[in-house]
């Protein structure tokens, strides 16, 4: 039973914190977001140089061999900086999917480039009717001789518009919601028949709706086993969801601290706001919500690669549910305690609030994860 960080983790934490402090202030972030792409390629290269893009990949694949706890450390620190670069989409979603399901050729082709920051990738697994459920797949992939033909559409693809490579789930057998019959495909974004409608997220990321119309792919585009891709997708989504919980905890910590500072500073009716008991208790509740989410983010990280599926899903769903609920409370109250300026776009408080709001909508909402958690009770003894 040990909650301390290893020496390496501490160094990682410090380096990310230093980066956020030095290179990702609120003003710097604003400038970064003004880029046409909505993020900075330069920052992205820095991520690559610092090895962050290689963190969660096996050493055999050229990665740093980090596990979910390392990811937790990195994401929690990045959560304080509200980064807008496509780290989760490229590294934790598409990258991990490739690393996990891809064969050596595929990894050689894409994974190295990805870790070096030369390739952006995205994972397209959700569909509109299925909402948060990765097993709802209507998109079809049909074998045509040596190649594949894909038709269908995917929704809310995080950083899908800037991605060079799209990893897409499609049905090679069965009907929507059937676990069997889902396969993963790697699609270069410039493949004919691929069209993307880009949109922005409320927290400054990019996403898109993806349509596939008679997209023709070579046989080698299949990533992993045919018909057996769902567990790969779910494993990757869970590990990434655990990371989002850490990101949310980082944002909540920062927001709670910022709000406390504001309450101490700002005076009303002749005393600092921090002197009002109702506001004090609100702060206490914000801290408690943050700690609730933090404890479960740790749990999720510890089990994010567990081989026992039910254990992994319970831990991740518990954490993502709580991160959603806590994030909502902390975000809303931070805005409320700031009063008018909490609503304006010009202070960081609102941006933390928006990030926390968006995190809940990503990789399964609190509602969705609660339902999944409730469906996996531990065996009742006696």
């Amino acid at each position, binding site marked *: 039973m040990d909650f301390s960080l290893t020496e390496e983790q501490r160094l990682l934490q410090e380096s990310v914190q230093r980066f956020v402090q030095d290179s990702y202030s609120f003003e710097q972030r604003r400038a970064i977001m003004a880029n046409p792409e909505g993020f900075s390629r330069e920052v992205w290269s820095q991520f690559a140089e610092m090895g962050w893009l290689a963190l969660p990949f096996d050493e055999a694949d050229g990665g740093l061999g980090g596990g979910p706890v390392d990811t937790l450390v990195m994401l929690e620190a990045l959560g304080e900086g509200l980064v807008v670069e496509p780290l989760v989409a490229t590294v934790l979603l598409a990258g991990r999917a490739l690393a996990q399901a891809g064969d050596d050729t595929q990894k050689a082709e894409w994974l190295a480039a990805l870790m070096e920051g030369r390739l952006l990738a995205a994972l397209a697994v959700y569909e509109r009717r299925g*909402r948060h459920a990765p097993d709802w797949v209507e998109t079809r992939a049909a074998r045509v001789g040596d190649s594949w033909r894909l038709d269908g559409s995917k929704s809310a693809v995080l950083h899908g518009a800037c991605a060079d490579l799209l990893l897409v789930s499609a049905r090679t057998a069965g009907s929507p919601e059937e676990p069997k019959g889902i396969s993963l495909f790697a699609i270069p974004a410039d493949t004919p028949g691929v069209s993307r409608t880009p949109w922005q997220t409320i927290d400054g990321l990019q996403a898109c709706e993806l349509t596939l119309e008679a997209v023709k792919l070579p046989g080698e585009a299949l990533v992993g086993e045919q018909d057996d891709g769902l567990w790969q997708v779910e494993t990757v989504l869970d590990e990434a969801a655990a990371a989002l919980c850490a990101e949310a905890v980082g944002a909540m910590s920062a927001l709670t601290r910022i709000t406390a500072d504001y309450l101490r500073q700002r005076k009303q009716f002749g005393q600092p706001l921090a002197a009002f008991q109702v506001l004090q208790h609100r702060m206490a509740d914000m801290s408690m919500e943050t700690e609730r989410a933090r404890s479960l983010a740790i749990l999720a990280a510890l089990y994010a690669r567990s081989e026992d599926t039910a254990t992994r899903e319970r831990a991740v769903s518990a954490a993502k549910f709580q991160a959603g609920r806590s994030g909502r409370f902390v975000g809303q109250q931070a805005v409320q305690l700031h009063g008018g300026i909490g609503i304006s776009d010009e202070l960081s408080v609102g941006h933390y609030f928006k990030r926390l709001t968006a995190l809940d909508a990503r990789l399964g909402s609190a509602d969705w994860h609660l339902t999944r958690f409730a469906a996996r009770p531990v065996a009742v003894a006696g």
Partner: protein
Amino acid sequence: MDLQFSAEERAFQRDVREFLESELTPELKRAVSLTPTVFVEKDIADEWHARLNRRGWLAPLWPKQYGGAEWTPVQQFIYESEAARAGAPTTIPMGVRMVGPVIIRFGSEAQKACYLPRILSGEDTWCQGYSEPGSGSDLASLKTRAEPEGEDYLVNGTKLWTTHAHYANWIFCLVRTSSEGRPQAGISFLLIDMNSPGISVTPIRSLSGDHEVNQVFFDNVRVPQANRIGDEGQGWTCAKFLLEHERGGVFSHRLMAMVQELRRLMIDTPDGEATLLEDARLRERLAALEVRVLSLEITEMRVLSKLRAGDPPGAESSMLKVEWSELQQALTELAMDIAGPYAQFFEPGRPLYALAGHTLGDERLARIPPDYLNTRAASIFAGTNEIQRNIIARLTLGA
């Protein structure tokens, strides 16, 4: 006890329905349904004001002699109820409901003759200069100074959260004309031409990317003393009058319209092979909010009844404020959960009703996130809910 309207009131209700039937165009309705800000945009407001004014209904509470409708509380209730059900725009209050009543109550005959007709005609657009940086809930600590110079004042300072200042040609301000005695005592109520030299307006974009409020700067702005309403130092009285004038209020029908909108959205939102309406948790979450809206409707009626009987509403006006603001927030929060993954969707274009195509096909989805974000303000403006609960407690605890 009964909820029936009298024969006269029913006749009025028919008039309102007819009016809405003929005046509320599909374009106006759509604009309302795609407005995520507190107030509709100026073009929509102007058009609706003009239609109301032609019918004599723009200023429901003004005396007839000034062009008002002199509605009873029940008539107001009926109008608000029908307008909400029909999806009509709300009127922008700064002219008709705020500065207008103050001029009527405290203004000189000359001031009445000058300003009131121009509010009704739409010639003037007003904004409100109360809040300042550093004095939000604690209004009495405001610092904007008006110092006499000849027949004028020289005004220096700044006002914050000034809704529609970027449209307005007039602003009514609370300004400090004296720093002696209690802070409240040195405040005066001043009308200022927004075209005066020395005024500048800086937009404040909200979280949601909307531009509705501003900061207004006054740098040696020369304002005739004749633009003061009432005596020097009477500003606090004017402000308090306005607050009391706004007591009661009818919010439940707009909220009920939101409930119905959410139900429609749930019916239209697929969830695998079913729709979200079949999700018992979401359905009952909506139902629990609908119950509170129903309750609020009765409470509003009870308050109107009290007002009609001449009784002061007591803690109830604060309760109404807390209730509608928190219900609004809970409803927009539920909308986010209905939107699911699209709760993170951000449409930068404004106004939403002016956009041609919509990325997600269903244009209603574009409104949900900004609505949720903007609604956070509901528990902050018009007296934070913390202040309202202080008031309720004082009145119920007698403490």
